[in-house]
């Protein structure tokens, strides 16, 4: 990110440029090389100038996809993804994608064009108050009123989006600001008096935490996405091994700790491993790292880790004590904090505790029903074998997301990318565009349900145009499955508006020039996945799975581990 900065942007310093050019120069200096977007009236001056710059611009088919792609890019690379939209409907189409990024702390810079300043407030054609609309779903936003502010605002936007707890920052640029001229001064220092994230945890607090951990008999670590964002996986591994502490992850923390490790408990929460949830219930010390105690993770808050002293490390002070009581709060970057903490941790052997947890582990059923229809678990385990557990998995939302989370066995940070906080159906396919472009050397697989796939399938066209090597799996159960599961379990199987049809996915893919397979037999799962993996370019594989399979175990919303629901044996 920084290496390019010195090479570019310098030569035009001190010259008179248009607002559009200053935006582009700022993007270059921020190390940006790809933008996702769609042009429109107010954005034309920006797109005009874009022709003179070396960016790759990915023309999506709906602005929501631009936001998800930028979000995927940001999650996968740790650098802010950038999306662009025109004023009015272009900007409002971004909203779901911005909210998705906001809730999952994904770094993103959003550029929207706006009607000229003299029209603002007059309900002009395609005028919409996008800074007002996105106020609660951005880390910060700007309506730039003068070309002289463009350079400073762009610099601030990237700084705010990418530092501390990352998040989306929107810059709204009126058309006349894009065409007016000003002197481009790239060295303008930042003056953000009110923005100074605390990156280093308080030493005394860290020492207290170390003492508490050293004295613990039944400690558990919970790793959230903050571990991945701060790049602390190595430190986490060292801490867990030195102190012999089992590690559970949140949904978005998957990959922070290798699931192949003896100390891995897998995912906690509503659809988490029983053993992980039980370990947390019995723990005497809980070390929560870079996580925010979402209710899908905690269940009934008052029953969460009832016996534990809680140490909570997070870069965002507002997360500490927000949902769950805390005994030792530490505000700081997880990596920095663990690097210090580790020096004060005494090596320990907690085999009794680890062995006790082991007895709670259930044998995964993996749904290996041969000669029957493929099961989602079977598809995911076969995919793990075919890709040797080394692919990046981008999921949609619903049952498919949980099956993907629980049956692949993730070992690397960022190998599982999913919409957690907002749970946005339609996220998977467009987000994967950004993931693949951000990590071109990785194998990127999309796992989607049939419902969510139909929410943004127009992006197949983008994928074809950009010739992206994306492997797309549709788990087709003919239902909005996760909602159907809730209706089955909590609403007496009254299936209201959850049965859903879809197109012939093979023909659909063909229309986009993408090869596709439909798999209806379990025995064909592995061989088809092999074929998909070997076929160059984008490929779609549809797996027709049992319509009413459920995700288990499940702790009903607002309930406790005692209320867990399991698969019926005779099913």
């Amino acid at each position: 990110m920084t290496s390019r900065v010195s090479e570019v942007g310098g030569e035009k310093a001190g010259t008179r440029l248009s607002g559009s050019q200053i935006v582009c120069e700022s993007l270059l200096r921020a190390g940006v090389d790809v933008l996702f977007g769609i042009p429109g009236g107010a954005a034309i001056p920006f797109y005009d100038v874009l022709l003179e710059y070396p960016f790759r611009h990915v023309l999506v088919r709906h602005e929501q996809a631009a936001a998800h792609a930028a979000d995927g890019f940001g999650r996968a690379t740790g650098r802010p993804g950038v999306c662009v939209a025109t004023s009015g409907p272009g900007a409002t189409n971004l909203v779901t994608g911005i909210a998705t990024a906001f809730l999952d702390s994904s770094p993103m810079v959003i550029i929207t064009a706006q009607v000229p300043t003299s029209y603002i407030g007059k309900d002009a054609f395609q005028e919409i108050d996008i800074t007002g609309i996105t106020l609660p779903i951005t880390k910060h936003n700007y309506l730039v009123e003068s070309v002289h502010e463009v350079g400073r605002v762009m610099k601030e936007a990237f700084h705010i989006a990418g530092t501390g707890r990352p998040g989306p920052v929107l810059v709204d640029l009126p058309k006349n600001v894009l065409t007016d001229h000003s002197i481009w001064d790239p060295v303008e220092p930042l003056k953000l008096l009110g923005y100074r994230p605390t990156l280093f945890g308080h030493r005394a607090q860290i020492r207290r935490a170390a003492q508490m951990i050293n004295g613990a008999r039944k400690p558990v670590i919970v790793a959230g996405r903050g571990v991945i964002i701060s790049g602390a996986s190595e430190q986490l591994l060292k801490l867990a091994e030195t102190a012999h502490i089992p590690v559970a992850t949140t949904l978005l923390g998957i990959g922070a700790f290798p699931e192949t490790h003896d100390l891995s408990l897998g995912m906690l929460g509503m659809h988490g491993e029983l053993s992980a949830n039980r370990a947390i219930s019995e723990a005497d010390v809980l070390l929560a790292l870079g996580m925010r105690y979402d209710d899908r993770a905690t269940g009934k808050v008052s029953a969460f880790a009832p016996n534990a002293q809680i140490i909570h490390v997070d870069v965002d002070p507002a997360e500490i004590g927000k949902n769950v009581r805390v005994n030792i709060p530490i505000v700081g970057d997880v990596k920095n904090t663990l690097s210090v903490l580790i020096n004060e941790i005494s090596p320990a052997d907690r085999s009794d505790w680890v062995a006790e947890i082991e007895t709670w582990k259930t044998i995964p059923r993996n749904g290996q029903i041969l000669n029957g229809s493929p099961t989602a678990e079977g598809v995911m385990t076969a995919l793990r074998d075919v890709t040797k557990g080394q692919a990046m998995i981008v999921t949609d939302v619903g049952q498919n997301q949980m099956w993907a989370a629980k049956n692949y066995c993730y070992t690397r940070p960022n190998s599982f990318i999913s919409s957690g906080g907002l749970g946005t159906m339609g996220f998977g396919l467009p987000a994967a565009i950004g993931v693949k472009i951000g990590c071109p050397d990785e194998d990127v697989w999309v796992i989607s349900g049939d419902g969510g796939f139909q929410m943004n399938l127009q992006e197949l066209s983008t994928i074809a145009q950009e010739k992206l090597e994306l492997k797309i799996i549709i788990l087709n159960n003919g239902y909005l499955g996760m909602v159907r599961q809730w209706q089955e379990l909590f609403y007496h199987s009254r299936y209201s508006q959850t049965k859903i049809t879809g197109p012939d996915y093979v023909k659909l893919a063909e229309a986009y020039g993408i090869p596709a397979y439909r798999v209806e037999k379990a025995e064909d799962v592995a061989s088809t996945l092999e074929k998909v993996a070997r076929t160059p370019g984008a490929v779609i594989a549809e797996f027709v799975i049992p319509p009413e399979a459920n995700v288990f175990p499940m702790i009903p919303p607002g309930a406790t581990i005692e209320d867990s629901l399991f698969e019926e044996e005779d099913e």
Partner: protein
Amino acid sequence: MTRSHTIVALVEDRKGVLNRVVSLFRRRGFNIESLTVGRTDVPQISRMTIVIHGTDPIVEQLVKQLYKLIEVLKVSEVNVEESVVRELALIKVNATASTRSEIMQIVDIYRANIVDVTRDSVVIEVTGPQAKVDSLVSLLRGFGIKEVARTGHVAMIRGSMATARASTYFQESDWKNAAATQTTSDSY
């Protein structure tokens, strides 16, 4: 236990900052009892005094959320017992020849001022803690109140310590320079 909390926030005076603060309160489910905004001794910094009802942990969470706003420089909760808390009110009251002198006596007792007189009304200006303004308003009710305008609280800790000092964030030279740069860049 819920109680009244008085919070003082120093904010950078950028466009939309009041909207950000108010929107934050709405989003997090807080009812604002009173909110005042005004300039400080530093032109780029405004001072807000916000009175809200809530439990201590909830207000602590609110303070943290306020800090997340980029323009917010400093947030402190003011202990009312250790502070000067004032509010200003304008009260328009019916006042005939027969009642005017009685009203004037009340105004005197409250060390308030009559700032406008007509044949049948007066406008009273009063400053003080909320309770004083409340009690004056209720005393005047019998004469027939036409209008009341109250500013809401401003607050400052007593003693020499400054808990929300604007000049910590901008030196005078800073804002003079900033003003100078502004003029040059505007001349393009």
